[in-house]
């Protein structure tokens, strides 16, 4: 899941990016509206955390433009972050197309919960737990279980598994994984996707799920509908 964090407070953006990366998201940052729109114009973000009051193009305008120009047909979920909390501010934010609204200062846990909830809406699920076959993923607690055995995953492997599990049975290309699991700092010419898929497979293999992720030659990867070996 790839997230863009936009705020004119650099110290805030950096802390948010750090925290969200730790949760396994791929995070890009922008410190004003122009930069945000530019980045969103070529990356199909799953979610944008958007500050309402920014110099230049403000959050409302960014929100409207993001809605008007979806990249690859995907309109990102928009979580508005703002220090303004009057009813009028909330209404104008939601009217501009924000999916949710969080007033500063907020607890990072609450932000995390809201992001998970917004991303679940796309996957059509209602809980924080993903289940495919014998695979069991608790996105809130960062806990992955395969056939009853706990998996010890790095944030990136966790994010990769989560992405596969949100599209069970579908073929997922390397480009799509780069767009949604890796952030702007990933070098598309390295073997980073292949390497991470490899380590994830190996870890799944240790608990009997070595055939969970299959390679579809020339197209990408697919998480077997049965998931784990179970």
């Amino acid at each position: 899941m790839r997230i863009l964090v936009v705020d004119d407070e650099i110290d805030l953006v950096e802390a948010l990016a750090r925290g969200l990366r730790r949760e396994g998201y791929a995070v890009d940052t922008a410190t004003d509206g122009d930069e945000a729109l530019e980045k969103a114009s070529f990356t199909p973000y799953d979610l944008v955390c958007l500050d309402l009051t920014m110099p230049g193009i403000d959050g409302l305008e960014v929100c409207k433009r993001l809605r008007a120009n979806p990249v690859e047909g995907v309109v990102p979920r928009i979580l508005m972050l703002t220090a303004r909390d009057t009813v009028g501010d909330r209404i104008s934010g939601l009217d501009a197309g924000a999916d949710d609204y969080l007033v500063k200062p907020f607890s990072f846990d609450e932000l995390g919960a809201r992001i998970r909830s917004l991303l679940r809406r796309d996957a059509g699920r209602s809980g924080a737990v993903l289940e495919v076959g014998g695979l069991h993923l608790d996105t809130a607690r960062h806990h992955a279980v395969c056939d009853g055995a706990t998996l010890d995953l790095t944030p990136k492997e966790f994010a990769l598994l989560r992405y596969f599990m949100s599209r069970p049975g579908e073929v997922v290309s390397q480009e799509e994984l780069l767009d949604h699991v890796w952030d702007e700092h990933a070098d598309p010419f390295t073997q980073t996707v292949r390497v991470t898929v490899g380590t994830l497979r190996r870890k799944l293999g240790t608990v009997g799920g070595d055939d969970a992720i299959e390679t579809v030659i020339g197209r990408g990867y697919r998480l077997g509908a049965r998931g784990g070996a179970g």
Partner: protein
Amino acid sequence: MSTGPAGVRPSRLRHIRLPAAGIRFRLAVLHSILLFGVAALAVGAIYQNVSRVLEDEPMSRHSAFTELVDTPILGSSSTTLDNAGGGLQVFEEAVNRRALRQLRIYSVVALAVLFFASLAIGWYVAGLVVHPIGRITAVARRIQGTDLSRRISLGGPPDEFRELADTFDDMLDRLDAAFEMQRHFIQEASHELRNPLAVLRTNLDVVMHDPRSEPEDFRAAGEVALRATSRMSSLVDDLLLYAHHERPDVHRNPIDLASVVAETVADFAAAAESTGVELRAEVAERLPVIGDPVALRRGLANLLSNSIRVSDPESSVLVTAGHDDEKVWISVRDEGPGIDPDDIDHVFQRFWRGDLPSAREHGRSGLGLAIVRQIAEGHGGQATVRSTVGVGSTFTIWLPRYVDR
């Protein structure tokens, strides 16, 4: 129907109605008593006069009556008339007594009717008079706390009550505007405080909750926290200053602005030198104004720190001060980047920072120039700015000149 509200209502009714009914009742009774008194005096006087006239000058002794009796038609019995003289007088007195009794009865009845009629009319008229007061009271009572949206809007002819109601409405307008301004200010201020708070909280949250945080991460979060708190404290300082100067200070004395300028410029010499800015001052001899020297110093200091901040090293900041017949002025001219014509109307606004994210990072509250304007206006003067992009800006404080007569 619960017993609670029912139990409360009678006492509230008593509170609301009594003062109005009291004055209405008093007015009606006063009106009635006065009218009754005047009427009773008039009727008494008439009765008194009539009875005296009838007793002193009975009609039988009136010349017209004698003439009537001596006419030839009655002439045949002039002697009988003399004989009848005593009887006529008795008869006449009886007639008079009866007439007077009738007059007395009619007077008393008329006075009684008048008393009750005047009481009713007085009650009605007093009601008309008291009604607008009741309305004003009701509106005043309904205005709760800071909800000042209600108005009396009495209407009707431009009389004393209309004037009272309009004055009241005007006062509500002013209070409403003042409350609205304060609400707005508090909103803005809390918004300004929330940003650094969010920075602080998120940084601490992220570092504290990550079991993999290294000592460098804590150090970095600590540095961010320091920046955020120093920003917050300078914001709070300026908020307090702003709130302080919002109330015009009444304790002011004649002072020489020239010495205030000289001292403030001297305070900034070190700051200017450390940034390589040349700070010069051209101040006239005596600049008498009535004012608060501490506030004026703060105003000039804000202008100076603003100008020095925007100035490049090697450029200069010039402070001039002088007067004409009516005004004293202090001017601060810099050779900085200047202000965009679109922005020039906003520079004295609260929390306006030229839309620069870097401004907040550098701990500027966005209140400095707003405080300058507030101080100038609090002294009966004004603050102005002229600026050309690429050339520089000139900020001026104008104050009324004090002339000792």
